[in-house]
């Protein structure tokens, strides 16, 4: 719903908004230009630090093969994120049912969270025969905790007065859960998911590094390793660039999802001028 304030914006405000949008782009361009100039003027060899133009050329040339690897990594990442959302949400829901269940389960969720993935990834890869499954498990392990902890917090954050209101009208536990606690927890869940999106990608990359799977199933992380060994530094940068773009896309997608679900009512989706 657009307020009347939207129409009557003063001209200065639109100019400021345009500047705010342009500023990061300008900074980025200045940075890249400076990088290119530095590399050329100091004659830095390409295997130490390639300039942005060389990197873009490499990306264009090796694009198709890198993209195939990116898809492998993305498949693991997105599947892990989906499983984190489902399992994390379900676990939080379960813990909200009873204090006892929460107290029994939560410490173990924390233990899983604080154990460094690089330390347990080799074990998982040894234990799980299927490479895809082992990578998926690694990515899921790091992605699911933010969803669990945020959603648990959200389910407990229902407004006290509203809880009283539901009680006054004789609402069942189930009605309170579905019509009060779950909608209250939604923004928390989505916030957790946004953190998990980045973590799932990192988890997938770390797991690929540890597993070192080559061949047709090679993910982007393996291509980075490979390029490093062969001193194909421009290719390494190109792969890194793709990885960063993928991370940004995941974040933007989740932010969009969050906006779609919350725009009507939640503070986080309110227009700024209020």
């Amino acid at each position: 719903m657009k307020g009347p304030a939207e129409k009557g914006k003063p001209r200065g405000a639109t100019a400021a908004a345009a500047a705010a949008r342009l500023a990061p782009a300008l900074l980025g361009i200045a940075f890249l230009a400076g990088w290119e100039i530095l590399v050329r003027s100091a004659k830095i060899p390409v295997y130490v630090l390639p300039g942005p133009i060389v990197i873009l050329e490499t990306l264009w040339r090796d694009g198709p093969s890198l993209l195939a690897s990116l898809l492998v990594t993305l498949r693991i990442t997105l599947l892990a994120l989906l499983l984190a959302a489902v399992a994390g949400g379900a676990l939080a829901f379960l813990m909200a049912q009873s204090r006892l269940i929460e107290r029994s389960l939560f410490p173990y969720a924390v233990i899983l969270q604080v154990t460094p993935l690089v330390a347990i990834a080799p074990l998982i890869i040894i234990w799980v025969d299927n490479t895809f499954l082992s990578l998926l498990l690694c990515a899921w392990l790091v992605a699911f905790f933010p969803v669990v902890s945020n959603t648990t917090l959200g389910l407990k954050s229902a407004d006290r007065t509203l809880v009283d209101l539901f009680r006054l009208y004789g609402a069942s536990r189930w009605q309170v859960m579905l019509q009060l606690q779950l909608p209250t927890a939604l923004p928390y869940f989505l916030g957790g998911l946004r953190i998990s999106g980045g973590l799932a990608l990192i988890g997938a990359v770390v797991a690929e590094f540890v597993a070192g799977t080559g061949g047709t199933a090679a993910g982007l992380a393996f291509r980075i390793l490979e390029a490093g060994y062969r001193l194909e530094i421009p290719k390494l940068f190109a792969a890194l660039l793709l990885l960063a773009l993928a991370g940004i896309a995941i974040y933007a997608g989740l932010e969009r999802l969050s906006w779609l679900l919350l725009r009507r009512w939640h503070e986080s989706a309110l227009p700024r001028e209020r």
Partner: protein
Amino acid sequence: MSPEPAAAQGVAQAPALLHLEGLAKIYSDGTRALSAVNADVRRGELVSLLGPSGCGKSTLLRLIAGLDQASAGKVRWLDDAGAGAAGGEAGAAGAAGTAGKLAFVFQEPALLPWANVFENVRLPLKLARRDRGSADRAVAAALALVGLEDARSAYPRTLSGGMRMRVSIARALVTEPSVLLLDEPFAALDEITRFKLNDDLLKLWHERHLTVIFVTHSVFEAVYLSGRVLVMAAAPGRIVAEVPVALPYPREGTLRTEPAYGERCRAVSRALAEAAA
């Protein structure tokens, strides 16, 4: 307007609807929120509970609603048709038992932020699993009562404080309660909006034949609205005086400037000052 004792809507003769017997509330940390409260509320009456912050007036209202359980004493409803027989003894179950007959308006509007005005007002009927058609008609009627027909699809965050409170009142009325409990509902509003909502409340009370218990810390509001003011004091919370207001209904805004009104306000203020002393 005559300051002579005049029975408003024949309330003085009406039978008692609610009987509070030695009601006490002690919190688990030992705080005595209420001690030995005895009072009657008659059917069709508009009575105010007036007192300083922390005198237990909200606690008392919650005990009446069955939202909290009394440490001692009883809340007795003397009419099954009035507000259900469950009363204070059954605690939360009592609240469930009184659903539909009793409605509560909280200090904050307490609206679901993710639901629009219509859905917010429909909530009590939805929780009672009322069928969609009759629920929708009841919601439309309740919105008309508070003059919010045009805001039905608006979300709470787009509404002013006064309008939110109207939604809250419409939600309370949608179950066609016979008893309305209000806990400082207009305390956060500006005075002009508050005056307007005071008049709306008087009109609703009259038209719907409600029994209203109104908690406030404003002497002026209590006198303007009620036929009787129960003055409370703190530490421990208790009722220390009962001041009849004896101004005829219907009351209008012009009453606020009349000497009779000022006189009642002084009487209530005196009782409040004596209670604090």
